[in-house]
């Protein structure tokens, strides 16, 4: 796996090619690249390689299953196993179905907000916290590219309450304990007219999911294929 990542804009718009070295390939959302790299360093997973799909696929979740499938087909012959580092991510179960067909595993949970916090804890809060707007480290850094500009708020600030009026608070799920990101997240909340809460989640369920992937527990090929 690469030791350094391109800038966030590249991860958002272009993604990251694998190095074609290693036995296990992670096909991940570009928004998770920094966290995956950090966990790789921490755990010394020398045999893992990383490919990132553009993080901005989240603007069109219906395109994610096809993009993942194309990446699996492109690389499956070069690795012992492949693991998809996406949660459902707004695909309504279609990504899981596609991964099942392809014979590859993926991260459990509805989205990265859930697995960073821990899926069980996140779902336990669902009844009382459905009016929260979540940001992760990546989304705080890329707030303008992923939230402000795509929602047209740079051009039409009058749309803010139509878009965010039903939310009551912004919850920043911090992977890193970083004062600068905290300050930026607080500013994001202010710009959206929401109250602010910060939770230091760390990597949550992502670390055990990647640890399992590192074991290469499942074949990259679907059952019955050679």
């Amino acid at each position, binding site marked *: 796996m690469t030791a350094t990542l391109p800038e966030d804009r590249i991860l958002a718009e272009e993604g990251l090619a694998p190095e074609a070295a290693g036995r296990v390939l992670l096909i991940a959302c570009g928004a998770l690249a920094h966290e995956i790299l950090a966990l790789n360093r921490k755990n010394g997973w020398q045999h893992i390689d990383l490919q990132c799909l553009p993080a901005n696929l989240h603007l069109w979740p219906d395109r994610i299953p096809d993009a993942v499938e194309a990446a699996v087909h492109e690389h499956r012959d070069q690795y012992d196993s492949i693991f998809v580092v996406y949660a459902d991510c707004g695909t309504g179960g279609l990504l899981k179905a596609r991964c099942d067909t392809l014979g590859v595993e993926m991260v459990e949970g509805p989205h990265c907000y859930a697995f960073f916090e821990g899926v069980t804890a996140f779902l336990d809060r669902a*009844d009382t916290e459905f*009016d929260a707007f979540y940001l992760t480290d990546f989304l705080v850094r890329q707030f303008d590219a992923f939230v402000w500009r795509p929602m047209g708020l740079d051009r039409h600030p009058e749309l803010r309450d139509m878009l965010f009026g039903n939310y009551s608070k912004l919850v920043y799920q911090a992977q890193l304990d970083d004062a600068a990101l905290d300050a930026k997240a607080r500013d994001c909340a202010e710009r959206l007219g929401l109250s602010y809460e910060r939770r230091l989640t760390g990597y949550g369920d992502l670390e055990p999911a990647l640890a399992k992937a590192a074991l290469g527990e499942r074949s990259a090929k679907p059952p019955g294929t050679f």
Partner: protein
Amino acid sequence: MADEDDIILSELSDDELVLQMHDDLYDGLKEEIEEGVNILLERGWAPYDVLTKALVAGMTIVGADFRDGILFVPEVLLAANAMKAGMAILKPLLAETGAPRMGKMVIGTVKGDIHDIGKNLVAMMMEGAGFEVLDLGINNSVEKYLEALEKEQPDILGMSALLTTTMPYMKVVIDTMKEKGLRDDYIVLVGGAPLNEEFGRAIGADAYCRDAAVAVETAKQFVARKHNQLNG
């Protein structure tokens, strides 16, 4: 468009004005839409014709380009705001002059979900198509849906969800309707970004509608079928 300031709406022919209103709706120009609606009314257009030929037709173009990835949420919201402003002028006139009534719909976002942009677009386009719409808003429990069905006796129940975590609640509502023997009394339409046709079928809805234009067409078809059955 840079040269748009030069266009005097009142100097355009009816056909030109309608096309210009489609453009203005596309560009989210609220004041121009209000002006266009008033001009057509002054020229003796029936309010229903203004609604369908200028506003609904224009918004259908917006909806198609949104579906095709040409327009995004903010542009659609601006267009919707412009259409809403035009409809505000027409609504009282439609009530006075009488417009075809297609049927009645109760619509709302499901429990645990606060997202309402898509649902609001559907409600607006349904109204534009001649449906009476009762909008329950966001975060609706099964009890709230059932209460509205009993009180309003609509033809259609519409449910919307944006989250993978909340879309299963649609099945809770439909299953409760079945338990109470109410399911077949209503056309149930569902929609929302993470849904798909398979999900709609699996939970027992009559149809999944991928966008507002599809919702309108689907609603019209089901209501016509229902009426045919009643007449048969």
